[in-house]
């Protein structure tokens, strides 16, 4: 009877270990960002790309409309892929695009904009990448959709594509 009980305990213990390890093996050990988590936009101050004036986030997001914050850089190859789509989105009247120029050289960034067009209503300078951290980003390109209540409602890691543009248009409609 005692041996049977011990065997039962051992089996239960091994099954428990098996479940824990099996679950552990199935969960990815790389960072997977939460893309649908609703978060308030961070409060920050940043330099304007054109005027070089210091602006507060309240001033940047002052209108009660949808905003897109796109983190980009002239050295970032995927940013070139998504640029025509951002140009397409910028034609939409119910949304404003804010560009966050990430760890870039000013002249290169200026050339990028003059070569490919400017989809942004405002570009902010993020010289040391700390502004991107405030948004919870970890690379370029990254795009955030902000609703009228100033909540980040969607986060797109990597370059946006036609499907994402469709999704954004559907949300802001």
């Amino acid at each position, binding site marked *: 009877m005692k041996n049977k009980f011990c065997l039962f305990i051992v089996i239960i213990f091994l099954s428990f270990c098996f479940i*824990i390890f099996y679950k552990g093996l199935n969960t990815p050990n790389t*960072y997977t*960002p*939460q893309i649908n988590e609703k978060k308030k936009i961070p409060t920050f101050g940043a330099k304007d790309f054109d005027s070089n004036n210091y602006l507060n986030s309240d001033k940047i997001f002052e209108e009660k409309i949808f905003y897109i914050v796109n983190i980009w850089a002239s050295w970032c190859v995927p940013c070139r892929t998504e640029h025509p789509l951002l140009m397409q989105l910028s034609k939409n009247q119910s949304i404003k695009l804010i560009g966050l120029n990430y*760890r870039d050289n000013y002249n290169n960034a200026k050339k990028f904009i003059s070569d490919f067009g400017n989809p942004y209503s405002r570009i902010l300078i993020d010289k*040391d*990448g*700390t502004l*991107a*951290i*405030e*948004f*919870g980003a*970890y*690379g370029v390109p990254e795009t955030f959709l902000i609703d009228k209540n100033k909540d980040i409602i969607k986060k797109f890691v990597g370059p946006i594509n036609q499907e994402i543009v469709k999704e954004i248009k559907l949300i802001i409609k």
Partner: protein
Amino acid sequence: MKILKIFIILFLVTNFSELKSDETNDVLKNKILKNIRCLICQGQSVYDSESDFASSIKLIVDRKINKGLKEDQIYAFLRKKYGDWIIFDPPLNKNTYILWLLPLLFFLVGGAIIQKKILKKNEK
């Protein structure tokens, strides 16, 4: 002369305390950076990494320490932005109860078994 001596002592004391506070901040900064995971690297801490992401985090941590934020407050800030994954040392929450309590449970069960065996041996 006495006044001059007092001035020199005061000057040295204030400067040494500043140096000491910088040193304390550096120790704290390194401790925090070693406990933050570099999200774009493979198994590296922010302290060990030279990536853009890591250098931005280093700047953020430095600014937060200079602002007077405590270690826990800095971790809380980073967890709010990136989730628990960014910290190497996981906090006690509903997802990590097993991780934290299982070793304790093993210790207690093992201890009970050993104690029972010893008592049995003594009875004999």
